[in-house]
């Protein structure tokens, strides 16, 4: 519903414009962002040719745009090849079965090149999983810590020390622990996936944990008194009194966590050579062709846009669960 609303908000002035009604057009919210983007593109286009690297000139907007097309075309080509592969396999199995009814059809999966688009989805899946695990730990733990002054004081020094640790420091530990602990003949997840996921979890745990604890701890004293006069049980107290008031803080934490998780993931993928956008960037860097810089720029921009979209999704989610629909969220 919110989406529909924003759409009609956007369309309204355009309809006015179509009728030739220029004054109705809200220039500021449309024009200023456009001007900003335009200024950025101009600046980029002007300065890029002045920077010479060992891989040639730094790419401008035009070269980068060209690579967007290339990367998409590569992905389509790879998809077509995969389809062809599966079709051939199906045909072959059919032929063999026709010749020999006892033949057990062989299923192999296509192992082609991972394209840029594949890497995007890998990274998205990884960050979602890591963030989900972090939230499932951080929110309940934050509630428990926030409800008890003593627990908060006990946990605070540990949290404060663990919080600023870089993902690059966690990575070797996580890698070794996952390799040692996660031994399975038929693994559901690949090890590299889990290493990335847990690294994201470890780094994106803290903002949600701290903000939840603080939000819960800030529950109005009067409401806590009301709750104890009524003798609400722990669960009702949390659900009806504590959580609704803590929602804004929890979401502030969740949004921080998700953006940190996304940043951490790219770094972890680069360092550990785990599948994802980070690996794509690293591979292009190692590859060192004349197109590499442009392709890295595409990845960089996509990383930024995905981060932005993820944050907007969280914001929409916050609007959905927040009781105070009039609160200005940004």
């Amino acid at each position, binding site marked *: 519903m919110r989406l529909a609303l924003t759409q009609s908000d956007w369309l309204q002035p355009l309809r006015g414009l179509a009728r030739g009604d220029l004054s109705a057009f809200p220039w500021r919210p449309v024009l200023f962002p456009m001007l900003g983007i335009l200024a950025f593109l101009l600046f980029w286009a002007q300065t890029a040719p002045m920077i010479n690297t060992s891989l040639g000139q730094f790419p401008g907007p035009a070269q980068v745009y060209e690579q967007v097309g290339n990367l998409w075309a590569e992905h389509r080509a790879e998809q077509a090849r995969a389809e062809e592969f599966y079709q051939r396999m199906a045909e072959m199995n059919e032929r063999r079965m026709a010749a020999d009814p006892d033949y057990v059809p062989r299923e192999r999966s296509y192992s082609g090149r991972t394209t840029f688009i594949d890497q995007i989805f890998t990274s998205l899946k990884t960050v979602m999983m890591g963030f989900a695990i972090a939230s499932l730990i951080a929110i309940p733990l934050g509630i428990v810590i926030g409800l008890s002054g003593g627990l908060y004081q006990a946990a605070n020094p540990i949290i404060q020390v663990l919080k600023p640790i870089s993902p690059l420091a966690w990575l070797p530990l996580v890698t070794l622990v996952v390799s040692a602990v996660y031994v399975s003949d038929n693994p559901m997840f690949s090890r590299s996936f889990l290493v990335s996921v847990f690294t994201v979890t470890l780094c994106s745990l803290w903002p949600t944990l701290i903000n939840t604890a603080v939000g819960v701890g800030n529950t*109005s004293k*009067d*409401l806590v*008194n*009301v709750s*104890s*006069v*009524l*003798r*609400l049980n722990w669960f*009702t107290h949390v659900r*009806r*009194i504590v959580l*609704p*008031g803590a929602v804004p803080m929890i979401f502030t934490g969740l949004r921080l966590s998700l953006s940190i998780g996304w940043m951490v993931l790219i770094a972890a993928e680069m360092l550990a050579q785990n599948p994802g956008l980070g690996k794509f960037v690293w591979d292009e860097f190692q590859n060192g062709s004349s197109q590499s810089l442009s392709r890295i720029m595409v990845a960089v921009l996509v990383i930024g846009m995905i981060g932005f979209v993820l944050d907007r999704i969280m914001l929409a989610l916050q609007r959905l669960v927040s*009781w*105070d629909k009039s609160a200005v969220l940004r």
Partner: protein
Amino acid sequence: MNYLHIDHVSMEFPTPKGPFKALDNVDLRIGKGEFVSLIGHSGCGKSTVLNIVAGLLQATRGGISLDGKEVDSPGPDRGVVFQNHSLAPWLTAYQNVELAVRQVFKGRKTRAEMREWIRHNLALVHMEHAMNKRPDELSGGMKQRVGIARALSIEPKVLLLDEPFGALDALTRAHLQDSLMEIHADLGNTVIMITHDVDEAVLLSDRIVMMTNGPAATVGQVLEIDLERPRDRVALADSSHYNHYRQEVLRFLYEKQRKVEDFPQQQQRRQAGGMVGETRRRTVGAG
């Protein structure tokens, strides 16, 4: 006269500078259906007394017994109305009362009975028309009405009101006082109300308990208000009895227990050595 017994209660708060004795030997017996006001200067310990009765604070010495039983933790037999409405801002007026009713009457009332009961209590405080509004859509007086409805809805043995109308304008306050008198006449609740408003105390109470200034505050004087009910504020304005009671309370507050405080400004000046002679000024704190 022994329904609620505040039994020789003393209260010490631990502070960084050592224990602070807020209450010393407060002893008070209240009868069933009695309306008692606690009056005293700001900071003397009225809220502390009320919170001990509510079970939200534990007395260092002495205790509370209600209807023959010792009470030392909060419970729905003592409904509390705080000065700042203390409604959950994410619940409507109805839902705020519902939260209390569901908790207290679960298993004893059916869903339909509960709905009826919530409406009934909102009607008592004249808030039926706005029951689906959230606190931020209600005026201060309306919020306080809902708070009272919530406290009434759990049918407490004692209703504890901590300056319930302190934050309201005079006109709204008068309306709410009338509502409270009506409710008290209908339901015969036992009430302890903290106030710093002398007229409010005289108009509403059967007894006014006047507290001495802290630290180590205690009951200074108890005044029986022997005015016929129902009481009418306009008629009483001319009553000599009424005015006599008023004067008694005023005399206690402003002569016997007048509050002497330094003005910070004058303190500074004195420190600077600029002023000689009388630098003290009487201030009467309220609220």
